[in-house]
């Protein structure tokens, strides 16, 4: 894993900041600016700085070009509000392939790293996608998760073959919770809506980058879901006991301008009613992957290209309406589109450590 980290986190963050020193090459005066040529660097540096701050050093994550213009060249995928649009071909659970739909996606995320660098908390609000033609909605009201790097091993094994040797085993356990995940027609049944009231899961990080921005982890835990549908006024409650997921998040590239995610999820379902009725089908499996790359920035707000794919196989579509047996369903969605993000600060320099 160390080798992998070395590959995905090269030592250079931005060329202008290789030595951690800002590029102070500025025009000496308005005339130099007007003719588009930089003034002599020494003259600029020794000259008094203008009161408007134009000559100040650029902060981390920014770059000053030869014309003296400052621009942000690093963006944090974990802190942003985004709006996006994309082409989203889709295979419905009923087996129809829709090649015309578009999708509109949105969300807000906020990451924070503790002062000791050992805990990263991630908040996501209103993360969702609306599909049209045909209509589909998948939005999560609130999501919180936490990664922690433990200082002390959970288990110390000492071997006494030859010289005694100590082998530490760390278990980087964290927390994941989600509330108000709303989905329209998750099983391809017209009129059905599913609302996950909440999930509470423990996570086990199999690999973490040093800044905890990238990880591969397992998570598992229970959840409860409400299903409303064409079977009448009755709301059906389904428990996920458990939901298990293997997922990864990688922030990659010399300037951390690319992100790769994947997720493999399986749910074992149980009736969450007081009478614990058996379910005719009791599992679902989902796979997702996405890649996003920042292409340009407009006034320091990044615009990225994103491709994603997801597929699911559900066994819980049997006998949804009494007397109407149905079969296991398979569906997939592909997405290719752009996103514009706002309020995204530079990735802090700790990324390089």
């Amino acid at each position, binding site marked *: 894993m160390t080798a992998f980290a070395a590959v995905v986190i090269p030592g250079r963050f931005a060329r202008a900041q290789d030595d951690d020193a800002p590029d102070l090459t500025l025009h000496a005066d308005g005339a130099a600016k007007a003719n588009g040529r930089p003034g002599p660097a020494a003259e600029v540096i020794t000259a008094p700085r203008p009161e408007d701050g134009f000559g100040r050093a650029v902060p981390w994550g920014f770059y000053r070009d030869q014309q003296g213009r400052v*621009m942000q060249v690093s963006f944090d995928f974990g802190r942003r509000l985004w709006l996006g649009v994309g082409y989203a071909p889709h295979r419905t659970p009923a087996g129809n392939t829709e090649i015309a739909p578009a999708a509109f996606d949105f969300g807000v995320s906020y990451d924070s790293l503790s002062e000791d660098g050992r805990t990263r908390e991630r908040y996501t609000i209103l993360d*969702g996608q609306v599909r049209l033609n045909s209509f589909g909605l998948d939005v999560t009201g609130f999501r919180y998760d936490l990664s922690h790097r433990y200082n002390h091993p959970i288990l110390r094994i000492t071997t006494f073959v030859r010289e005694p040797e100590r082998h530490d085993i760390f278990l980087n356990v964290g927390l994941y919770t989600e509330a108000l995940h709303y989905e329209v027609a998750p099983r391809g049944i017209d009129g059905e809506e599913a609302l996950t009231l909440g999930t509470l899961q423990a996570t086990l990080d199999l690999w973490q980058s040093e800044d905890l921005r990238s990880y591969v982890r397992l998570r598992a835990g229970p959840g409860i879901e409400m299903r409303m549908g064409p079977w009448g006024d009755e709301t059906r409650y389904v428990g996920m006991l458990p939901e298990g997921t293997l997922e990864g998040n990688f922030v990659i590239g010399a300037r951390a301008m690319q992100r790769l995610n994947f997720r493999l999820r399986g749910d074992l379902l149980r009736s969450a009613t007081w009478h614990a009725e058996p379910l005719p089908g009791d599992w679902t499996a989902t796979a997702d992957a996405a890649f996003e790359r*920042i292409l340009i920035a407009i006034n*320091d707000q990044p615009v990225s290209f994103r491709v994603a794919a997801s597929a699911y196989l559900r066994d819980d579509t049997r006998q949804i309406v009494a007397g109407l047996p149905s079969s296991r369903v398979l569906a997939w969605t592909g997405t290719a589109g752009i996103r514009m993000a706002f309020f995204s600060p530079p990735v802090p320099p700790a990324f390089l450590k």
Partner: protein
Amino acid sequence: MTTFARAAPLGLLLVAALCAPARRAAADQEAGSPPPVWITNAAGERYRVRFDPGERLILAAGAETLAGDTAGLTATPGFAVEFGLLLRDERPAPGWDVHWKQNHEIAHLRLHPTVGAGGAAVEGALYRGIFLRQSREGTLTLPLTPPVALSLPFDVGVLVEVGHLHGALWPEAGGPPVDAGVFHGEVLADFWRSRQPGRWLTVGVGGRYEVGMQRDPAEALHLDHRVSPMTTVAVALHSERADGLAAGGLRAEASHRWSSVRGWERAYRVDADAEVTPLAANDRPLALFAVATADTAPDLPRPELRVMAGVRFSHPLRQW
């Protein structure tokens, strides 16, 4: 569109009236210091003469008319109330490089107790925020090595709206529809780039998801999901005097959206608002205001023109 054609001169007049002093004020204030907040008269009495229209609690009452066109505005108006919390950020410190102008509206709603089969209707949003990023110069950055910047003549920003409500408070059997906007986001380009709060001229491209709900006489609930996948274009102009005693805005929006009932369709909306504060009671402004909205969309039986005028009481939250 007849409605809009008739309403256009009225809107332009409103904009012209608001923009003239606003532009003068902008030129003055962007070059000089802001006007005083408190003054003292010859008798030594101190009173407030400057307010922040973006930082206050508001409570308003007035008359509202709903019509299919401007001729219909002569109908007897109904009583309506408005309330909300408006917040905005502090002005940037001198020497700023980049500053986000923020304007928040929280639970800014108008209630029309006399409209609708259920006896009540609502218009407004639970949250609306306009964030305009001001920088000394705009650039389009290509993240090459080294990065390349191309100059842009505008600032960028974003509009976020959650929980927009329009129509009856609850879908009743046989009653009027309820439109619930779940999320609306818009990428903005601000061509005014004013350093003063409350001033912008934006062109926006946005996306929206809303649900139209209506119950038929048999109590069955019909849902109409409407999605605009970044296919809404809007132009907005807003201005206010530096002393906050007059403010106004105009916004026009055209949306090419998809409806789960009717498929692709087009919808148009124009909003205008104006406010003038002629007096203050106990240093709290009492303003005359008017808001107008013109709407046309395939889900409406006919174009709608709503005009409300009345008195707005504000409790200033910024004391300076």
